[in-house]
């Protein structure tokens, strides 16, 4: 080490600053890991003493909270299936067939998609759902998310499919496969990593969304977990920290599990286009 004195202190100062910034970001995460296991959890960070699962017992005793997790699961899974299937078929068609102006169509859809699931369109969406008579149903939430997420999902997938040589399906068809067989036997397995990216991305989007289910759902039986967290507040609006912490941890686990599963099974790859 042949550092000059000013450079040495400069480096210490920089490290200290970096550590400080790191701590600012780490503290909430630590709270998030400690508080659920602390029966006397406060807004401040404290190491649980003793470690306890009592908060979880209370949460699982609350039928509304458990139902909300199930609702989240239904809405996210339903949305993912719809987005995944529709985006795959649409992106495949856009990539492989010569639809006139297909580039423009994709970009216009992409432009409007940020509006559909955004707050700006909340009133028209509310009116449409209401007129369709599906207010306060899972279908309403699933359809709204599908409409909002599809264009981006199509965009990501089309980019992905464009990068796959046409000769895969062509060789299958020359060998005697129908276009449908060629799609399922050859194209679909090859584009699966792209579909996985879209599936994870839309699952996380729906799972974490608050505004749309909050607006479109009325009865507490249909509320997803993101809205249910809101119920762990007393009448006066102060949070019941112990339950809130335990529930938040449970709420975040499926997403973490999904990421781990996908990166173990497929590895994460984003191809061109947009990383949401």
């Amino acid at each position, binding site marked *: 080490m042949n550092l000059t004195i000013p450079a040495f202190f400069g480096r210490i100062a920089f490290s200290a600053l970096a550590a400080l910034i790191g701590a600012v970001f780490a503290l909430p995460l630590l709270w998030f890991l400690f508080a659920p296991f602390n029966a006397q959890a406060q807004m401040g960070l404290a190491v649980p003493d003793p470690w306890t699962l009592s908060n979880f017992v209370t949460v699982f005793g609350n039928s509304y909270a458990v139902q909300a997790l199930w609702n989240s699961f239904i809405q996210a899974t339903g949305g993912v299936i719809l987005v995944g299937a529709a985006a795959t078929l649409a992106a495949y068609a856009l990539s492989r067939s010569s639809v006139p102006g297909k580039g423009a169509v994709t970009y216009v859809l992409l432009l409007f998609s940020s509006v559909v699931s955004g707050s700006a369109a909340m009133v028209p969406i509310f009116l449409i759902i209401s007129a369709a008579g599906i207010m306060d149903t899972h279908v309403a939430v699933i359809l709204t998310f599908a409409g909002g997420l599809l264009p981006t999902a199509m965009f990501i997938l089309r980019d992905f499919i464009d990068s796959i*040589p046409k000769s895969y399906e062509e*060789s299958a068809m*020359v*060998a*005697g*496969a*129908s276009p449908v067989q060629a799609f399922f036997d*050859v194209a679909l397995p*090859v584009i699966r990593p792209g579909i996985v990216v879209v599936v994870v991305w839309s699952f996380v989007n729906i799972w974490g969304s608050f505004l749309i289910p909050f607006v479109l759902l009325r009865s507490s039986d249909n509320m997803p977990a993101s809205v249910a967290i809101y119920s762990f507040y007393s009448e006066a609006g102060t949070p019941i920290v112990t339950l809130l912490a335990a529930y938040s941890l449970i709420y975040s686990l499926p997403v973490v599990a999904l990421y781990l599963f996908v990166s173990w099974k497929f590895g994460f790859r984003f191809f061109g286009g947009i990383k949401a």
Partner: protein
Amino acid sequence: MASVEFKSVTKSFGDFKAVSEVNFNIGDGEFVCLLGPSGCGKTTSLRMMAGLETPTSGQILIGGDEVTHLHPKDRNIAMVFQDYALYPHMNLADNIAYPLKVRGEAVANRHGRAREVADVLKIGHLMDRLPSQISGGQQQRTSLARALVYPAKVYLFDEPLSNLDAKLRLEARGFLNHLQRDMGMTAVYVTHDQAEAMALATRIAVMDQGKIVQYASPIEIYRRPATTFVANFVGNPPMNLVEVDGTQAGGQLVLKGEGLAMAGLPMTDAIGNALASSSKLTLGVRPEHLSLTAAGATNSISAPLFANENMGPESLVTIDRGEGARVTARIFTDDHLHVSDQVSLSFSAEHVHLFDAMGKRIPAVGE
């Protein structure tokens, strides 16, 4: 096995005519190479036979039946792709057996048949591997095995050897040649490599700008190229083309050109016709028909040496007649030639090819 016939087939992409008014037929059991530079329409022609492109106009017949608008799956053809198009998620056994799978064969049957073909191609021991786990040469043979695993009417090859290194390419070429003669299959083979076409084909269709310029046996194309384009495309190195001025004097054709010293050639009606429209002719001599000679000899061409490349058994001696007009000779020589030395190359009159101002061959005496 079956014949293939093109009846005034045209394929346009927008304003661009990739293939224009092409007529030709391929006999049962023939090995036809479509040869030409990139963009000449050879791959488009092949893809129309496969049904991967639909002709803008015209008819395509396979085995006498019209297939112009038939889906590829209904044509009973086999095709080897330039990039092999092996399915990355299937092992070799499933890849090779895929055509049998879509024909509804049972798993045991189709894997048995795939193994038989793979054994012939010496990849039988790799059946559990994925395409990404084998070498380029093995991938090439896998795609060939997938084409051979079922009996097809016509076998189509789209530059199947172009992704192999030189040594493997020679080996695969010899194997394909043997296989086609052995099976008597009808094969159509697209390539831009004239050596590949010469070695494999029973007939070569030389294509340029969407048209077939000459369709003949390899030896015919070598000996009597129909145009300067064919002459310049076939041969290694290709034929030397020298622009000359032709005049008729005393019942003989006299050719004049920079560095050229030639005795008169016998006049024919064909030469007379060519001279009637223009005195500009093109003289063609193959590099292998040139030899070193003393300066000023008759039937010779002289210019300063541009390059002398020793290839082992032979040398390529190139002279530069100015403005990039070069003449190359393939000769067996150990002579020490130096750049800019004046070099004379001679040829005999029987090896002279003549082309008119439009680049069309003027038939020699007795053709």
